């Protein structure tokens, strides 16, 4: 493995750890709002680091851009969903 692949591998593992942290938070945190906090780490950092790692070692600009697009769209969708659920939950006893 060359240096670039090492960096990519480290990014991928770091991303996976954020997925793990998010899942642990989802299971351990006490209420919906703090669980939401855990979920957003997965969408932003978890998927973000994963995309970065995969883009680095893909060696193709087209693939890297597509991965970036997937991440941006996932963030827009996830942020909207998180906001809607939080807003709805805060308006209900």
């Amino acid at each position, binding site marked *: 493995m060359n240096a670039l692949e090492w960096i990519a591998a480290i990014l991928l593992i770091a991303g996976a750890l954020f997925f793990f942290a998010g899942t642990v938070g989802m299971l351990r945190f006490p209420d919906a709002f703090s669980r939401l906090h855990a979920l957003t780490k997965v969408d932003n950092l978890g998927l973000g680091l994963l995309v970065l790692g995969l883009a680095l070692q893909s060696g193709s600009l087209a693939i890297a851009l597509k991965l970036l697009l997937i991440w941006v*769209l996932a963030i827009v969708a996830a*942020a*909207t969903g998180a906001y809607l659920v939080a807003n709805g939950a805060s308006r209900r006893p």
Partner: protein
Amino acid sequence: MVNLYLVFDLLLALTLMWVGWRTLTSPDLFRGVVLFIAFGVLMTLAWVRLEAPDVAMAEAAIGAGLTGALLLDALADLRARRSHQDIEVSRLAAVSVITLALAGVLSWVMLTLPAQHASMHAPVTQPPNASGITNPVTLVLLVYRAYDTLLEMAVLLLAVIGARALHDEAPVGRAAPQYDLLAPAARVLLPAILLVAAYLLWAGATRPGGAFQAGAVLGAAGVLLRLAGLLPSPATYRRWMQMGLVSGFMVFLLVGVLVIFAGLPWLGYPATHTKALILLVETGLTLSIGMSLLSLFMSVPEQRSPSTHARASAS
């Protein structure tokens, strides 16, 4: 060295069975529906492992997206949201034993059946002419089994007619509340979704994708707009929608019949303009499938349900 693929497959299959089981046994139907959405995500992964990316794409759009939205939407109209097993103990035991035995027998047959079968693979991967279509699934759908696909569109159309016979479109008169982020987000996402639909339609000739996936994505875009309250009153575009609904069936039929005058068999394609014709048919199919899914989502008796009404005015 452990075969990691086998680990992945077994873990996925077990999770899939567990989610299926809990979907169908949870007393709380809302939980059942959410589990079914998770089931759709897991099915997408299963298709990927079965080397069926075409199917995975449709499942991602329909199983993990549209079906969930449909079920949640229907659940809102039901007052009875709990469901229990409703059967005597003796019959329950009989049903359990029989279904378990049948599942065992079927699994045994699957395990012992010799793994030889006639595959379409060889003829499909060597196209008879230079059609330019290299995605084997698209070839099956539009060339080898075009008759099936045509009739499948008719079935889809029948389902829409059936649903619309029950209700007309519900009005979308509900004002969007101020806090609502869904409408602006839908405006941002809409161009992306439409672009993806067009890309999948185009990609279908050579890569996984095609009319069914693009149509599902298109339908999802419509459903998102409707949920965000961005669709105008159905009365203003009813005619367009009806034309869209029948476009796939009609274009397909027209192409299928017109080629007869060129001396070709029914639903055959001329050697020269195959790709253009297939793309034309696929565009029609995409519109039809998208409109059908949106139309099925819209044919709900929203105004008749008191519980929905109360919630609508409260929010």
